[in-house]
């Protein structure tokens, strides 16, 4: 089993998310950058539907993700790719439509292959410490928690087969 996810706060404006995956870096990178693969796992809060997944994978190219829940509530985010090194590094800006992160954030994901495993380090830099703490405290955590609870009841028959 890959090492569990770790979340660290390396500075007062950053969140660092580290996670190992069983697979080569090119494949893991593909899962982060090819719409048909992204759609399969970055499904947002459970109970939400991934309605838009557009990726223009080139420097300066844009991406847009939109999820919609059973009540019709829409959550969207998007940004621009700033650096693309296949199987090595992906840098993008990201901004939620609701902007609960207090301005644009910059995400730098490093893909480090070790044997048959790939470690991803996602360093998210927020516009300010307040924005970072806000992201930790509200929005995502609360919204997703609610989403999960709804799904827990919906998913009584076990994980959906993809």
């Amino acid at each position, binding site marked *: 089993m890959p090492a569990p996810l770790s979340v660290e706060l390396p500075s007062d404006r950053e969140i660092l998310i580290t996670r190992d995956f069983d697979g080569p870096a090119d*494949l893991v990178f593909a899962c982060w950058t090819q719409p048909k693969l992204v759609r399969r796992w970055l499904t947002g809060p459970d109970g939400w539907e991934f309605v838009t997944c557009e990726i223009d994978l080139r420097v300066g190219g844009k991406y847009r993700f939109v999820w919609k829940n059973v009540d019709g509530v829409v959550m969207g985010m998007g940004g621009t790719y700033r650096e693309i090194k296949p199987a090595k590094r992906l840098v993008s800006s990201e901004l939620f439509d609701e902007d609960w992160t207090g301005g644009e954030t910059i995400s730098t994901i490093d893909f480090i292959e070790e044997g048959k495993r790939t470690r991803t380090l996602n360093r998210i830099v927020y516009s300010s410490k307040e924005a970072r703490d806000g992201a930790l405290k509200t929005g995502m955590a609360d919204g997703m928690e609610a989403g999960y609870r709804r799904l827990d009841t919906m998913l009584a028959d076990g994980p959906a087969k993809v």
Partner: protein
Amino acid sequence: MNTSDRLDATFLALADPTRRAILTRLAKGEASVAELAEPFAMSQPAISKHLKILERAGLVSQGRRATSRPRKIEAAPLAEANQWIERYREVWERSFSKLDSLLAELQAPATDTKN
């Protein structure tokens, strides 16, 4: 302070390597300001400033002994901050475990190695 203010104070206090080192030291036991200053290339007033921020967050408290006023670590605010980080972690873990399944599926037909 309400929960949100407390968390702000906690995260601010933790967002500094010297203050984290002070907490690590205090986790091993009480220490005076002089003892805390020792491993750092810092004056006692500088350390006191860091301690003030830690105390405001409730992470550190002052002991009773009048002469040295040893500082000690307080667990509650850390636990609260940790709870928030833990929830954030869970959000990502949900997605990442889906990515685990996807990666397993993508690699299954190509390489028929038993896993």
